[in-house]
């Protein structure tokens, strides 16, 4: 075969690649149309919803950071209960044993009026609880496996109208799995962290799911500058992680009041809000 034949083949291949890639390009209005299909769903806490402009948006990554006992797990549980109560599948990755079905039940009761009929609540509770799948994950590799498989599962699942789609992915806490790997001595930890970040963002987009995860705080050391909250705490996943979430919410306790405050420290910001953890709900201050 002469040179001409090889050249023609090369051109044919290039053309094929061109056709394949360019078919995937979308224009602005397509993007906008797709965005309008995404839903914003409530977290079950009115104050946090207000902070986020309505709730968690599908396709977005929301980070919760804050010191211990500031309500991170409570917010995760509340969002899980709220999404499932609205017929969305929830995948809850529990790395620290914080998941409590009893608490989900309490929060679920809070979604109903005081005098709601018991049978109705119970039936709905059953449905809600069955929509939440809980994984106990104690190392990062099982998390990676899980994330990749949740991605693969997409193709079959999303075309099935009978099945509720995955609306929310919760990882509580992500930093508990990742922070042991982040040592100065090894770079591998950062590579794994970057992989997790890429997978999370990819998964949120392809599955059109909201992803909520927690990032605990660590002491930033004595000599570091204190932030405006008067504490010297910083998120455990460090500065390299900062740009991963679409939004980062910081929770903190307001000492001596029983109230907590939440503010957005990264992403589209809003006025800080106050909330309180009640026996069957998490609620903001009543509006005057």
């Amino acid at each position, binding site marked *: 075969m002469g040179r001409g034949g090889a050249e023609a083949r090369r051109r044919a291949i290039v053309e094929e690649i061109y056709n394949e890639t360019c078919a995937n390009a979308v224009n602005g209005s397509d993007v906008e149309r797709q965005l309008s299909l995404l839903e914003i769903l409530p977290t079950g806490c009115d104050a946090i919803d207000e902070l986020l402009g309505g709730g968690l948006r599908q396709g977005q990554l929301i980070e919760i950071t804050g010191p*211990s006992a500031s309500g991170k797990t409570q917010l995760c549980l509340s969002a899980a209960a709220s999404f499932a109560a609205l017929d969305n599948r929830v995948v809850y990755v529990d790395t620290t044993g914080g998941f409590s079905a009893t608490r989900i039940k309490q929060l679920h009761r809070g979604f109903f009026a005081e005098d709601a009929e018991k049978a109705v609540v119970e039936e709905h509770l059953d449905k809600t609880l069955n929509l939440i799948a809980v994984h106990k994950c104690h190392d990062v590799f099982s998390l990676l496996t899980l994330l990749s498989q949740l991605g693969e599962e997409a193709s*079959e699942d999303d075309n099935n109208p009978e099945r509720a789609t995955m609306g929310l992915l919760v990882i509580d806490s992500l930093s508990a799995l990742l922070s042991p790997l982040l040592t100065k001595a090894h770079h591998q930890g950062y590579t794994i962290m970057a992989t997790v970040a890429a997978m999370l963002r990819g998964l949120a987009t392809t599955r059109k799911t909201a992803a909520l995860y927690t990032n605990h705080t660590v002491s930033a050391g004595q000599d570091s500058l204190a932030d405006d909250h008067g504490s010297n705490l910083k998120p455990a996943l460090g500065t390299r992680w900062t740009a991963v979430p679409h939004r980062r919410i910081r929770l903190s306790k307001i000492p001596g009041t029983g109230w907590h405050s939440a503010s957005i420290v990264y992403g589209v910001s809003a006025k800080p809000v106050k909330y309180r953890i009640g026996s069957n709900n998490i609620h903001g201050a009543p509006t005057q």
Partner: protein
Amino acid sequence: MDHAPGDWFQDSYALTSLALAPSTRSKLQRAGVHSARDVLRISGNSPSTLARECALTLDEANDALKAARFNGEGIALRGARSAAELLREERARWSVFTFCEALDDALGGGAASGEITELCGCPGIGKTQMAMQLSVSAQTPRAFGGLGGEAVYVDTEGSFTAERAMDMAEALAEHLGRCAKRCEDEDARREMEAALETCAPEAMLRGIHLFRCHEVTELLAALETLGEFIAERPKVRLVVIDSVAFHFRQDFQDMALRTTILSKMTNRLMSIATTQQVAVVTVNQVTVKPQRDGSARLVPALGESYAHACTTRVILSWENDERVAFVTKSPRLPQARARYAVTAGGIRDVRGSKRAAP
């Protein structure tokens, strides 16, 4: 079509997520099989049917079935449980009681299985006493509503004293004896009396497995083997680490390394707690933290990052010459406080603080 609860995640294993030989997979695909459930449905659990339907050899059909049945569970949602299942399980959870009713109420029954409960407080407040009390009361026979279990006690400080544990065991045996006498139901009493014979104080001490760890490496080694140790002794219901803080506060120069090892250790403890369904109780010390305004206050040791590690945190402290326990962190319990006393027989309620019976 009716679905059993939890069905949805079983049908969702795509054929591609099963570990199959490529040739087998493509044969299945050609036969129109899409998911693990299809494999099971077509075969009706018989490899020969599957082989016939999908033009596979019998060996291939066997592999495919095995993968669909077991590997499927090992894929995407391995070990996933629906919250409904977990709620049933949480209801069936047991707790190791502290013998102080007020504190047990605040903890929802005591130190719960599948969780890490941390006790922290200043020296002399009764952390070790509480830990020993828990190891003894884990052995309360079932006839008395106890767990009839055994305990693992990992001692890093050398503060476990057999004499003191003996005191508590004797007090418990005596208390149980009184309960048995007072019991009015004939059958129950006979059962209790039979149980009493097996729980002599010496027998209770035999049920406490003590690991004495002199340095951090030993502690880590002990925790590494603990899973197997417990698997061999299915009666173990409680693991106590007294204390976590001791070695970690003195053996480390490199703070980043300390944090790393601590969080690895916590993940290990958590997995022991959930996979073996035991209650894990850790003891932590307190440290002085200077405040911005120049004052100082006591905070649990091991720092901020470790604070996230426990499921439930109980802070023990003094309040007007009385010992008080505060439940400061828990995903399922409200914050609460309870008064308790350390007596000759172990941890008890403060006299006169018992609530009226409902």
